[in-house]
């Protein structure tokens, strides 16, 4: 009766499905749905950009700095390009950055966290020290440093951002592993002589996997913001690729004259990052009901 959350070891997919069936009308469920809806809409915009965008994003289609209205719903920018078309095309960049950078962060952070948490001891402390040093360092500065060295391009920027967020994945996963490691069934498996790799694969990974969607959505939002920050500082993608952050850097000096050319790209960044946060917060409420547990416990067994 304590419900889905009491069953500690159901699979992630099973949990998610069960959760959406049971939780779709709770606040957490609604948050996830709204967030997913917005993210998917932006994804569709990005994929169908050539068909949806009214103009070519890189061509001068009208006089510069036309206010919103008429054929140009969001006006034109300093270069006479259509702001709306650039926003639609520009949605590709943050999504690509999210995909690439979180993959890299996960690919490095997950194994490091698993090994560090499972091995413990000196190795754990060593990795922890390195990760904490990176974490304590201002993220944007680190990304600037890396981006300045390795240069522009989606892959390069994604890598710079990925490095910044490796410690987040590492931390969450390592802490999760150290707590799962003490579960009786894991101790039993180790005591019975099961090889480490299988213990990690069979018992630890499936448990730890449930925290990944949450870190993912939080980090995705941070990645978008970091990319925008780099772009604003002139360390983003090469010119010619429409990108929300880059558009801000192109137009912000004229903000008092043509506010729309800066305002709308920024607004879209805010919409995307907030939607990602909704997904993360909702998933967190659902998958990590630590905060909620108490009440249910009172109802369940008091």
């Amino acid at each position, binding site marked *: 009766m304590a419900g889905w959350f009491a069953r500690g070891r159901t699979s992630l997919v099973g949990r998610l499905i069960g959760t959406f069936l049971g939780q779709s009308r709770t606040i957490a469920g609604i948050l996830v749905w709204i967030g997913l809806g917005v993210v998917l809409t932006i994804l569709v915009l990005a994929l169908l950009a050539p068909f949806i965008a009214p103009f070519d994003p890189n061509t001068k289609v009208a006089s510069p700095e036309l206010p919103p209205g008429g054929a140009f719903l969001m006006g034109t920018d300093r270069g006479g390009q259509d702001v709306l078309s650039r926003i639609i095309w520009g949605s590709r960049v943050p999504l690509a950055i999210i995909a690439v950078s979180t993959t890299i962060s996960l690919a490095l952070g997950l194994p490091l966290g698993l090994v560090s948490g499972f091995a413990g001891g000196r190795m754990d402390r060593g990795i922890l020290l390195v990760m904490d040093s990176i974490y304590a360092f201002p993220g944007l500065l680190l990304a600037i440093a890396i981006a300045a060295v390795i240069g522009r391009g989606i892959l390069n920027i994604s890598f710079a951002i990925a490095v910044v967020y490796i410690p987040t994945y590492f931390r969450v996963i390592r802490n999760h592993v150290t707590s799962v490691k003490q579960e009786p069934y894991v101790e039993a498996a180790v005591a019975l002589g099961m090889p480490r790799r299988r213990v990690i694969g069979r018992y630890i990974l499936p448990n730890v996997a449930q925290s990944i969607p949450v870190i993912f959505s939080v980090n995705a939002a941070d990645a978008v913001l970091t990319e925008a*920050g780099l772009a604003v500082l002139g360390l983003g993608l090469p010119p010619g690729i429409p990108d929300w952050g880059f558009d801000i850097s192109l137009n912000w000096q004229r903000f008092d004259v043509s506010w729309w050319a800066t305002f709308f790209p920024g607004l879209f960044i805010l919409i995307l990052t907030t939607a990602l946060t909704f997904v993360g917060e909702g998933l967190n409420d659902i998958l990590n009901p630590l905060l909620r547990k108490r009440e249910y416990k009172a109802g369940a067994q008091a």
Partner: protein
Amino acid sequence: MPGSTASLRAYVITRVILMVPMLVLLLTFTFIILRVAPGDPVSTIYGERGNPQVIDRIKTELGLYDPLYVQFFRYLRDVFTGNMGTSILTQRPVIDEITSRMPATIELTFSSMLVASVLGIGLGTFAGTRRDRLPDFATRLYGALAYNIPIFWFGLILKLIFAVWLGWLPVSGRFSPRLSPPPTVTGLYTIDSLLAGNLPAFVDAVAHLVLPSLTLGIVLSGFFVRITRVNVIHAMGSDYVEAARARGIPERSVFFRHGLKNALVPVITTMGLTFALLFSGAILTETVFSFEGMGRFVFLAISYRDYPAIQGAVVYYGILMVVISLGIDILNAFVDPRIRY
């Protein structure tokens, strides 16, 4: 508290010693990234068309042709002897650059932290005590929006509304050119103008601080709202709060003495981490408001591969992090008796 001063002192010393490997690691990391990677400062500044002989001579002078390990140890020695070299970009000693910009950053950091913690802790408490009701959702929404807002963009909007359109506050800079700045004592215009008893200068310095610190503070408050809310909920649902209620303690005392005070312990702990966020945000905020602080300096230094300047900045940030995390730890030990032992 018998014996606690001694244990507190031992605690502080341990923490300081622990910071040394972290600092060395940070320095090594910077060194590797900047020296091993392709590209060098001299070529970056003089460009491809520069005279190769001149470039060669400058590179030799800077020791860029020495083996890497020699460069590395020279770099470490310089750092620990306080010799930060001369900025390639501005041709001024790095240490002077840093000391002239540090006060701006300190003023910005301090006032943003103030905005962030007052707003964040206030709203987080408000939401946490009204859990799952309308004010809670409104505050959570505020937290999500504040945390996710592109800081540069947000600064521009505030600037456009309050400085350009309404004209209430200055558009940029640290001080109005029409006023003469107060004599330098600390470098902080706010403090120095007060020390000099110059009220108009103080008002002017504060006015210049308002928008940048609101920008940075509001963005950061998103983080504080979340963490405070969670911890207030956690503390108010704790066993000792229930026990206090069972003893008939008035709800006001239950909230302040048992709930809020305990909730703030983890908030203080995480405050240390928010400084990393704060310094990232400062780079962008300083750019929007032409607020010449460390953030701008580091950004320019990195962009132009100004090695001595970057080194100096890394050391500066490293020391700052050491001091901040030490301060947070001591504050924590002071508040929470369990940490002292």
